[in-house]
């Protein structure tokens, strides 16, 4: 399954979004243009569906409430809206999920509209009669209720399968130095990363580690072997054997690994985990530019190796990654800040960019200059 179209209104710094999404999507834009906020829409859908989640949790606890979430450029029509179209190629089905919400007098999120359709047929349309009788019902989406979501369980499971990764090497090394989000499972920053690796089924774990080790040897040639094991205190460690001039390889743990080694390992492991949409935040960090330029191929190869068709959304500043003819105009969106909120643009709808891409220029040639910060010279302090 794949999110094929996203529409949103008043979401964080976006006044209005309406874009088609391909299986692979690169998101570029200047700093603070909203790349993470864009990805956050998908995390929000996940937060609605996971256990311990739901509308109140997703809006109030995780995102600071409706007023913090609502776009500053929102004026008339202030509801926050998220509307996705999901294509299921295997079953030849198209689902849509629409949610708009606002806040009640106690500033708690309250649903204005929730609609689910399958192949154009409406399965759910709220507010319904029951909602009118009991207004409290509108504080919960149908997604978060097992009884209510019976007819569209695949959508719920699909949203649950969204995973977001922004691994921070220091958090992987010293999880105790970083305060926990309160929930230990599935931490995007890697605090529980080695724990997760260690908890993987032994056979699966070893098979993945072998494949990752082989791939990583290209980037880190002196790396001989990768394993994960627990120390005397039960704390899991990633252990790498490095070859050197002595006859036996020396062992190092994640504490001694370079940032690049840890990030690359984290990225590869992440690709092996799960089947749902994967949101990657700047996967190029700490990596050599040659490796960065191969990231799209690395991702493709791992997914092929697994036989998994999985949507991957990548935010990036790396021109190296986009400088290839194999990236099509439909696979890129660029964010352009404006007074009326950030605009999400596609080369498909930009005549000039489309002509340039058709003339043999790459996304890096065309889109990176367009998405570069305006007035960069103001970074030059006047001495």
């Amino acid at each position, binding site marked *: 399954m794949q999110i094929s179209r996203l529409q949103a209104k008043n979401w964080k710094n976006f006044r209005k979004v309406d874009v088609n999404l391909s299986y692979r999507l690169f998101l570029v834009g200047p700093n603070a243009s909203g790349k993470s906020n864009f990805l956050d829409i998908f995390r929000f859908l996940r937060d609605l569906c996971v256990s311990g989640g739901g509308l109140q949790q997703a809006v109030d606890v995780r995102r600071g409430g409706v007023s913090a979430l609502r776009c500053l450029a929102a004026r008339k029509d202030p509801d926050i809206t998220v509307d996705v179209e999901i294509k299921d190629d295997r079953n030849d089905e198209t689902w849509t999920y629409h949610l708009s919400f606002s806040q009640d007098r106690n500033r708690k999120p309250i649903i204005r509209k929730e609609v689910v359709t399958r192949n154009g047929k409406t399965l759910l349309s709220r507010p319904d009669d029951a909602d009118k009788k009991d207004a409290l019902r509108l504080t919960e989406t149908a997604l978060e209720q097992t009884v209510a979501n019976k007819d569209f369980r695949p959508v719920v499971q699909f949203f649950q399968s969204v995973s977001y990764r922004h691994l921070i090497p220091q958090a992987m090394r010293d999880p105790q130095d970083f305060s926990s989000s309160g929930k230990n499972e599935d931490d995007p920053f890697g605090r529980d990363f080695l724990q997760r690796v260690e908890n993987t089924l032994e056979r699966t774990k070893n098979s993945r580690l072998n494949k990752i080790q082989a791939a990583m040897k290209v980037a880190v040639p002196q790396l001989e072997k990768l394993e994960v094991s627990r120390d005397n205190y039960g704390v899991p460690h990633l252990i790498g054997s490095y070859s050197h001039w002595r006859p036996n390889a020396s062992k190092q743990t994640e504490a001694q690994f370079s940032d690049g080694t840890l990030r690359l390992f984290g990225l590869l492991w992440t690709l092996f985990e799960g089947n749902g949409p994967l949101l990657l935040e700047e996967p190029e960090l700490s990596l050599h530019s040659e490796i960065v330029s191969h990231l799209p191929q690395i991702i493709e190869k791992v997914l092929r190796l697994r036989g998994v068709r999985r949507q991957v959304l990548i935010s990036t500043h790396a021109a190296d990654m986009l400088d290839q003819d194999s990236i099509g105009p439909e696979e890129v969106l660029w964010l352009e800040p404006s007074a009326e909120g950030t605009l999400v643009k596609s080369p498909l709808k930009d005549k*000039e960019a489309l002509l*340039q891409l058709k*003339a043999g*220029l790459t996304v890096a*040639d065309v889109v990176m*200059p367009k998405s570069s910060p305006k007035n960069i*010279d103001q970074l*030059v302090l006047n*001495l």
Partner: protein
Amino acid sequence: MAFINFLVEGRIDEAVAIKLASSAGFEPGTCFGKKGMSYIKKKITGFNLSAQGSLFFALVDLMDTSLTCPAEVLSQWLPHRNPNMMFRVVVKEIESWLLADRQGIAEFLHVNSAFIPHAVETLDDPKQTLIQIARRSRRKFIRETLAPAAGTTAREGILYNDEMTRFVQDHWNTEEARLNSPSLDQCIIRLNELKGKQ
């Protein structure tokens, strides 16, 4: 409003191109390239092909091409030039155009204007000439930031790009400069012609 996009070698060239285009009445669009001469050489055909709906102003330093005359660059790099693609060759290097505003650059560098050469297009290495002049500045800041520090083998000072970009934006007098540089004069004439056709 007529928008024009740019294809240039680097930041100073970008500032020059934007200033010239704005003076001719164009609205500056996107600036492509900024990855040196070889990038433009490799990609010029693509940008030329795509210049159907939009205007382009490409600027290349003759010195970097290792060819001897601008016509040669044009015929080798871009034999089928799109009329929307204005491709100009700087003789010999963007610094020639900056030095061509003799009064302006002398004031900016805080040197006697007698140090600034007259025939800027015949200089062997305009950038090194400019840096050598900067070494004679009365201001310590200019001497220390435009010229490479003693002991390094860098070719330019640590703030060279920033400062020369600032010179172009705030001080460079194109009307003065065109009097000393035929290639700049031609470039300005062509830009105005292109603007006239819009």
